[in-house]
């Protein structure tokens, strides 16, 4: 069989860059295959996608050497329009690619552009809506849909063209874990039922492996480091070396000192043959120390019977109560629309609660304005672009103090101190535009820290970050927490973050506080995970399969072990 996509000694260099982003790539993909391309940010995995769909070189200019053939044609000759008949691309941003005003119109978009007659168009839209399970939502507007539904519409919007190849650019980035699982199931079904070739670009490897993939291509620095089937790949150390997180159960087995054999099918924990590793895992479990981190501080923040409604009819939050101790690191989890952002908005004073109380250091903060609360509770938004308004780093970090009328000398001192803590001091005179995404994120955190708040609230601190940047940001926050005693609340979809870095998690579901417990206990609770759209950790399955009675203890010890290794 001839490959449907074939890179031969292919290199690409963006016009504004000094060195090539793809270096001598040789890769064949065969019809009907399902391939996962993974690697750290900047490794060139998204660039590969743009080469296949023709955005390179028509929208992103640069120099191509070598050869690329997609379904018998060359993308650089066909351009984006020529390729759009063969290749469908589902982008990461579920909102940005929803172009139509309703589901039906969005599904029809490609057909409209092809000047298909209205009757035929309606027929094809109905058919594709059926494939992606959106038949009952045809006349819904994007604001009435969840992230997962929007993504299904995006898939339908490219499938409507009878494409042969589907490209997914980080399909899991904006979804809660349970929805991500469903997405992977749908991709798998489409790949089989519609006979399309699927390429998924994603660094959340374990989540993609929820369903079989044929091969995993690991990239680093513009080159292919490995191109193997998952069972073999997981037995090597390629992933660790390139900074891609391997499935947690694989890491745990490796920590236990076992060498995994591809024959035991480590691709899925559910079907993996655990028998050869059981004893090693069990004795490792018994030999590790449990995690102890007592916190007997006073409450920094207390929320009592908080209820909120936008329209006075439907409660977005109802009767939520919890307390956060000083120096705690806490996560707030739950699916989109569960009330997480509403909660942080109420704490910061953007909205007034319908009833209930919020206490800061034991004092009711209802009389305080947004600005006054901002001096004690700092909020860091998800995208740095939503916060940064000054061209220079030191100006941005000093902004909060400047508007409070602090003297220039004192501002400078505070800014320099903060920049040192954040590791940005050497760059203090740089323009913000010269920074990477992760560095910009740090500037945002620094600009809040400069005001010396007691509590920091972060909205999705690591969204869209690869493992390396994730670790960098989280270790930084951990340092702030440990060294400055800062209380940190994080709104997140990331189960790893919650397990690894927080002492406690609040689970919100449809405005109710469903649980307030340690992450390990929450993520080993089947019923709870399902209800709140969380994803049970694979460590739970491993523990169960190894006959360990306390899976949450196993998870705790695993995390403690990992942390110790990180610190060593």
């Amino acid at each position: 069989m001839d490959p449907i996509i074939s890179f031969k000694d292919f290199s690409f260099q963006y016009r504004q860059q000094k060195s090539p982003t793809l270096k001598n790539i040789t890769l064949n993909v065969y019809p009907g295959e399902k391939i996962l391309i993974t690697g750290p940010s900047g490794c060139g995995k998204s660039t590969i996608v743009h080469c296949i769909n023709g955005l390179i070189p028509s929208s992103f200019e640069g120099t191509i050497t070598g050869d690329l053939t997609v379904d018998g044609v060359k993308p650089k000759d066909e351009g984006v329009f020529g390729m759009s008949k063969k290749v469908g691309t589902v982008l990461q941003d579920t909102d940005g690619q929803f172009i139509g005003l309703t589901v039906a119109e969005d599904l029809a978009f490609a057909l409209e552009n092809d000047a298909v007659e209205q009757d035929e168009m309606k027929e094809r839209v109905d058919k594709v809506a059926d494939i992606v399970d959106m038949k009952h939502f045809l006349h819904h507007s994007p604001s009435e849909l969840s992230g997962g539904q929007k993504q299904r519409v995006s898939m339908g919007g490219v499938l409507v063209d009878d494409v042969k190849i589907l490209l997914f650019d980080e399909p899991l980035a904006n979804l809660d874990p349970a929805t991500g699982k469903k997405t992977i199931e749908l991709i798998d079904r489409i790949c089989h039922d519609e006979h399309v070739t699927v390429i998924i670009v994603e660094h959340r490897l374990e989540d993609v492996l929820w369903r079989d993939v044929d091969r995993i291509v690991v990239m680093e620095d513009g080159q292919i480091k490995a191109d193997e089937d998952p069972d073999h790949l997981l037995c090597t150390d390629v992933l660790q070396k390139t900074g891609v997180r391997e499935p947690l159960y694989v890491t745990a087995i490796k920590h236990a000192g076992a060498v995994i054999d591809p024959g035991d099918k480590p691709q899925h924990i559910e079907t993996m043959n655990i028998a050869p590793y059981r004893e090693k895992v069990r004795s490792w479990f018994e030999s590790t120390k449990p995690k102890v981190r007592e916190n007997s501080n006073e409450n920094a923040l207390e929320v009592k019977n908080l209820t909120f409604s936008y329209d006075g009819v439907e409660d977005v939050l109802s009767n939520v109560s919890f307390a956060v101790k000083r120096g705690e690191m806490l996560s707030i989890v739950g699916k989109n629309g569960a009330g997480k952002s509403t909660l942080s908005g109420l704490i910061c004073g953007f909205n007034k609660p319908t009833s209930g109380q919020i206490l800061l250091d034991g004092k009711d903060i209802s009389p305080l304005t947004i600005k006054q609360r901002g001096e004690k509770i700092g909020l860091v938004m998800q995208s740095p672009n939503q916060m940064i308004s000054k061209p220079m780093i030191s100006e941005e970090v000093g902004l909060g103090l400047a508007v409070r009328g602090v003297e220039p000398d004192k501002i400078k001192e505070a800014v320099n101190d903060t920049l040192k803590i954040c590791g940005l001091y050497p760059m203090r005179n740089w323009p913000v535009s010269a920074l990477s995404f992760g560095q910009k994120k740090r500037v945002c955190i620094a600009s809040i820290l400069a005001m010396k708040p007691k509590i920091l609230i972060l909205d999705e601190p690591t969204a869209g970050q690869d493992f390396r940047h994730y670790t960098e940001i989280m270790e930084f926050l951990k340092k702030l927490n440990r060294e400055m005693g800062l209380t940190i609340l994080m709104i997140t979809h990331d189960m790893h973050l919650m397990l690894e870095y927080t002492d406690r998690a609040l689970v919100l579901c449809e405005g109710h506080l469903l649980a307030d417990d340690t992450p390990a206990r929450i993520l080993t609770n089947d019923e709870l995970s399902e209800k709140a759209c969380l994803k049970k950790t694979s460590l739970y399955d491993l523990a169960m399969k190894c006959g360990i009675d306390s899976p949450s203890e196993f998870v705790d010890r695993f995390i403690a072990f990992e942390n110790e290794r990180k610190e060593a």
Partner: protein
Amino acid sequence: MAATRMLSYVEKDTFVHHLSGLTKLIFFLAWCITSAMTYDTRILLVMIAVSLVLFVISKTQWKQIAGVFKFILLMMIINVIAIFLLSPYQGCEIYHSKTVLAPFFAGHDITAEELFYLFNVVIKYFTVAPSIFIFLVTTNPSEFASSMNLIGVPYTVSYAISIALRYIPDVQDDYHRIKNAQEARGIEMNAANAKLSERIRRTSAIIFPLLFSTMEEIDVVSNAMELRGFGKKKKRTWYARKKLTKADYISIAATLAFMVFALWFTYRDGSRFYNPFA
């Protein structure tokens, strides 16, 4: 959080909503052209009456248009005052008579003719404004694009306009989110004590992030559109286009007939003004 947004399409089950966007666009254009060309008070009053009736039939709510209406009112007042100050005897010239009602100050006597002329200017605003409102709040934005395309506007332009309209709510949400976060940092917009220059400076703390995040979004949207073949062909079809019904044909015919009649009625004596002073 289904708050009613200013001047945006709201789905309702009324006669006006069921009409095709093309019909409403033709009505809107006919109304604008007619009211721009005629100063015949009787015609204008009939047009106001028709607009108001449609307003009621389409169940348009006051809060949907209140803000913009107030703005138009302000423009109208400025316009009327400016006309009076700059050409206080415009009415006398038009109606060839001068009936001084009250002396005001030198060269600015208040005349019945000028008042009547200004009255005409005012009612012209009132004929056009409701037709714009009705068009905007009863026409599905994607149908809006297809209607503009039907009367000859290139589809790339009409689609761009409709997509801009569609993203207004998103930008509004972004604005609120950014404003809140900046306010928490201490950059207050509504501070009563802040000087104007200070306020303008602070506004930049919202505008720049808003601009950057919007530009980021535009980039994604335009790539997504291109990937799905937008702009590939000279022509394009529309999923949301409504087929013209009998009601549409009748409405279009009635609108055009009225326009022809109105213009004939206005110009039949060679002047576009109705002169009650003659």
